[in-house]
Structure formats: C-alpha cells, structure tokens
C-alpha cells in the first residue's frame, strides 16, 4: 500500500508486511526514543539562551563535565593500549584458558553497573584487597578522581577488544610475510604494517569506550566519593539537580551531555566512513 503511494521511495517487492512493520518500527521508535529525547531538547530550548548559558556555565556543572570528560579520556586511553594488547594476545597466541578469557572480556556488558561499582569500591577502598596495598604507598584510589578512572576503565574494556579482535583476525598474514622478506624486523613490521591497518578499528573502539564512559553512572558513583568540584561526575549532577526539583538545571546539564554524545556518534561514523574508503571495511 505504501509502495503504491510512494513509488519512488521504496522498491517493489513480493514480500508483504512493509507498511505494517515499518509503521510499527517508526511508531515505537518515536514513542520510546524520539519524542522523549525531543522533550528534553524542547525543555532546554524553552529555558532561553541566557538562562541556559547561566546554568550550563555554572562552575559546579563545568567541573563535573570536565571530570567526566577527562576521566573518560584517561580510561579510554588505558583501554586502547590494554585492549589492543588483549586482542593481540587472544588472536595471535594460543595458551591455556584462552577461551575462558575470551568469554570473560564481555563481563562489563553483562555485570550490572551497581554490582561492578560496589565491588570496585570495596577492592580499592583503603581497607580493601588492593586499596590496602596502595594506601601505605600514598596512593589513594577510591573516593578520588583516580577511582573514577578505574570504574570507567572497567566499563569500557570490551569495546576496544571487540572492535580490534575481528579486524586483527581477518588481517592478511601475507602482508607481514612480505614485510619480513623485505628485511623489516618484527617490531618494525608490527608498528608500521599491522598497526596502521588496525588503526580505524582501534579509533572506533576508543570512541565507543569514550562515549560509554562519559554517560556512565552506576559503577562510578560508589567509588567516586562524589565531592562537588573534585570527584562529582556530570550524570550524578543531573540526579542531584533532579532531587532538588531543579528541573531547569538538570535539563541544561543533560542537554550539554547529549550534545557531547552526538559529537561522539558523529566522530564514530566519520572514522567508519574513512575506514571503508581506505581499507574497504568498516572498523
């Protein structure tokens, strides 16, 4: 039916159900995602520019956003390095327990963030298993910004591993053989032949981990200590403003975070488009 009305927008097909399924998809998408997000944008727009700027430029808000962003950058960087290492080890080497390790990589996706939060806090608290060892060395992790980075590292860990792994597995070994025949040492082959081919996947994983970390709430609030201006993340500030019934301030922070999320999404899509052009596959 829809195809009769819109002949140019859809190619004809003998399969039925286009109107029903697409209609339901659009309705459900609008009801659950688009209209609610639209309400947020409308609310933020309704604040007016000057009030929005006042709320968005509030020092406590800026401090929270800065911490969220910097801690996420740090965590994503740690994950880029170790995620690449883990992917490399899982793809290239065979060792006892490899399958088990491969399965447990996805733990941060499966473990509820609140559980991860209290576990990491107990672990890195001054009387915890690891915190107790670090405390005499003068290194405090829990209830400091370092704790935030630890929690965000946990949350973002699977992203880099899971984006790099398939690309590394499909990588043509002949290129490495060619590099070796031409006299390159192993280190030169890895850094100048293998890594450039992995770069788009690595960047995508980095951006995904970063995007996830910026919005993360559950695993962070336990370990952060939540001291305003020091270890208070932006999502927590939204919750605090809501509990004060200060909807305007909550909306302003949320709108800023949403803008950051859209920029991240754009970056990811640009990397993938570049990768498809340059390497013939999406990272």
């Amino acid at each position, binding site marked *: 039916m829809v195809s009769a009305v819109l002949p140019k927008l*859809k*190619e004809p097909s003998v399969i039925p*159900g*286009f109107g*029903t*399924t*697409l209609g339901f*998809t659009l309705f*459900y998408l609008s009801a*659950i*995602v688009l209209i*609610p997000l639209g309400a*947020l944008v409308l*609310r933020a727009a309704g604040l007016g520019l000057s009030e929005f700027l006042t709320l968005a430029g509030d020092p406590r808000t800026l401090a929270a956003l800065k911490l969220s962003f910097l801690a996420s950058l740090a965590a994503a960087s740690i994950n880029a390095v*170790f995620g690449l*290492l*883990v992917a*490399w080890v899982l793809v290239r*080497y065979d060792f006892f327990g490899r399958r088990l390790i491969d*399965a*447990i*990589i*996805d733990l*941060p*996706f*499966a*473990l*509820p*963030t*609140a*559980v991860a939060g*209290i*576990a990491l806090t*107990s*672990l890195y608290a001054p009387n915890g*298993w690891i915190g107790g060892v670090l405390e005499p060395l003068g290194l405090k992790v829990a209830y400091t910004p370092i704790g935030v980075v630890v929690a965000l590292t946990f949350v973002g860990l699977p992203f880099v591993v*899971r*984006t790099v792994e*398939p690309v590394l597995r499909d990588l043509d*070994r002949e290129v490495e053989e060619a590099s*070796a*025949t031409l006299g390159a040492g*192993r280190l030169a*082959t890895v850094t100048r032949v293998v890594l450039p081919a992995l770069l788009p996947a690595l960047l995508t994983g980095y951006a995904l981990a970063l995007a996830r970390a910026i*919005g*993360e709430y559950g695993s962070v609030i*336990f370990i952060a200590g939540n001291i305003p201006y020091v270890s208070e993340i932006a*999502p*927590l500030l*939204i*919750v605090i403003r809501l509990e004060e*019934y200060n*909807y305007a301030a909550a*909306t302003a922070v*949320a709108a800023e*975070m*949403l803008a950051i*999320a859209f920029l991240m999404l754009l970056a990811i*899509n640009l990397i993938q488009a570049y990768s498809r052009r340059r390497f013939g*596959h999406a990272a």
Partner: protein
Amino acid sequence: MLREVSARPVAPVPRPRFARLARRRSADAASARRWQPPTTERPLARWLLIALALGFLGFVLVIPLVLVFVEALKSGIGVYVAALADPDALAAIRLTLLISAIAVPANLVFGLAAAWAIAKFQFVGKSFLITLIDLPFSVSPVIAGLVFVLLFGSQGYFGPWLSDLGIEIVFAVPGIALATIFVTFPFVARELIPLMQEQGSGDEEAAISLGASGWKTFWLVTLPNVRWALLYGVLLCNARAMGEFGAVSVISGHIRGVTDTMPLHVEILYNEYAFPAAFAVASLLALLALVTLSIKSFLEWRHGASLKAQRSL
C-alpha cells in the same frame, strides 16, 4: 649441488671451500631447530605480552568478580540466605523479573518488526533509521530516566493531565519499565538487522511465490533462519534489563519494597553499610551475568556461523 659439481668435467674445487660449505650447513641445521617464522614474536616476548594482558584482566575483571562472592559469603551462609529472604529483597527480585518480562518482549517484537522492514525491503532513509535505532546506546542512562521525568513527572509536559486521571508513571512501575525499554531498545534489533540483511530476501520470495502467506513465511522461513541470533539478542537485552541502574534510579523514587529493583536494592543496602546483604543481592546479579556469559559463549561456539554477520559493537 655437490653431485652436480662432481658430475661436471671441471677442475676439482679446492678442499678448503668444501670444508667451509660443510661448516655452514651444520650451522644451518642447528639454527633450524630454533627457527621461528618471521611473522611471530620470540617466545619471551610472547609470554611477556600474555602475562601483561592476563595481569590487566585479572585486576580489572577477575578480582572484582571474585570479591563479590567472597564478600557475600564472608559472614556465613545463614546471613546470606537471610539477606535474600528479606521481604524487601524478595520484592526487589519480583520487580526486576516483572520489568524484564515487560521490557524484553516489547523490544523483541520491535526488533523483529524493524529487522523485517529494514532487511527485506529497499527504501529511502534506511541507514538513517538504523542510526536512530542505535541512538539509545549513545545516551547516558541518567538522561534516559530524566526524559521520562520531564514528560510524565509532576512538572512534566503530561504530568498534570496524568495526575488528574490518577495514572502514576514516574516513581511507579510504568516509568521503570519505560526507562528500561529505552536503555535496552537496540539489543534485539541490532543482532537481527545485519544478519537478516546478509541473508537477503530470496528465501521469503520463494515461499511467497509458492503460495505461503506472509505469516507462514515469517514463522516457517524467516524465524528458523534467525533463531540463534534472536536468542542472543534476547539474552543481552535481558541481562541489561535486569541490571539497569542509572535510568531506573532516576525514575523509581527508591520506594523500598515497592519501586526498588535488585540493583537499586544493592545500592540502598550498601549505603546503609549492610555490606553482607548488599553483596548477597549483588551476587545473584553477578550469577546472572555469569550465566548470560556462558550461554553467550556457548551460542558463539556452537552456532557462531548462524550468528555471524560482521558483528560490531
């Protein structure tokens, strides 16, 4: 080579050269035992890299997981059972199961409909639609809760109207369900869409042209083709639905025994310094995560081929 040389009627090669050749050959034979392909690392480097990777995973993943169970059982099995048998804990477990029973089927139906429309037909704006479906993954869970407060809360767009009708959404089960559906929105769809796109529509076209109805084609042709991917998506969707914290925390109002899900109950107990009880409830959720990971790995191992369609995160 030696035979070739000797077979030719040429002047005999001086002896010293032969000796040198022989020495070089034996050296080659010795190094052959230690020879390794130039496309792999030395054993020492290999073991160092493995140790470093495992060490990192140990500190970040394994030790926290072990700690949950150790802390839960530290005060004895009696405390553990009592914590789980507590009426508030039982209410939280019931609510978590209820929310998952609402959110997972809703997103399952949506995932099937979206995948059918996107994979079986060619239309304008398809890739934009796929991007929109993935949108909830880029949005902070806290914002997912906030948007429904802004819509349905007492200061929200529909708030006054709803309170006139006596319908409660915020600080009640419907709000928790909505926020959970939002954060688990893409899980089933994103497993099905790439797979069904790769499978194409040939099978369905054949079934239809042989006289099968649309429903019959769906049940007998499409569904069997995607059943493992569907299960995979449902599994991940369920894990997230049961474990969601941020979105639910914003909208639930934390009413003990009424709007407390399991993750929220963990938070309440933890903040009350009831650590053994908090970790007891947390251990149930950790167990759920382990079961999810096991089934997921099993599906990947046993049905990897029928799940595979360039999976990315």
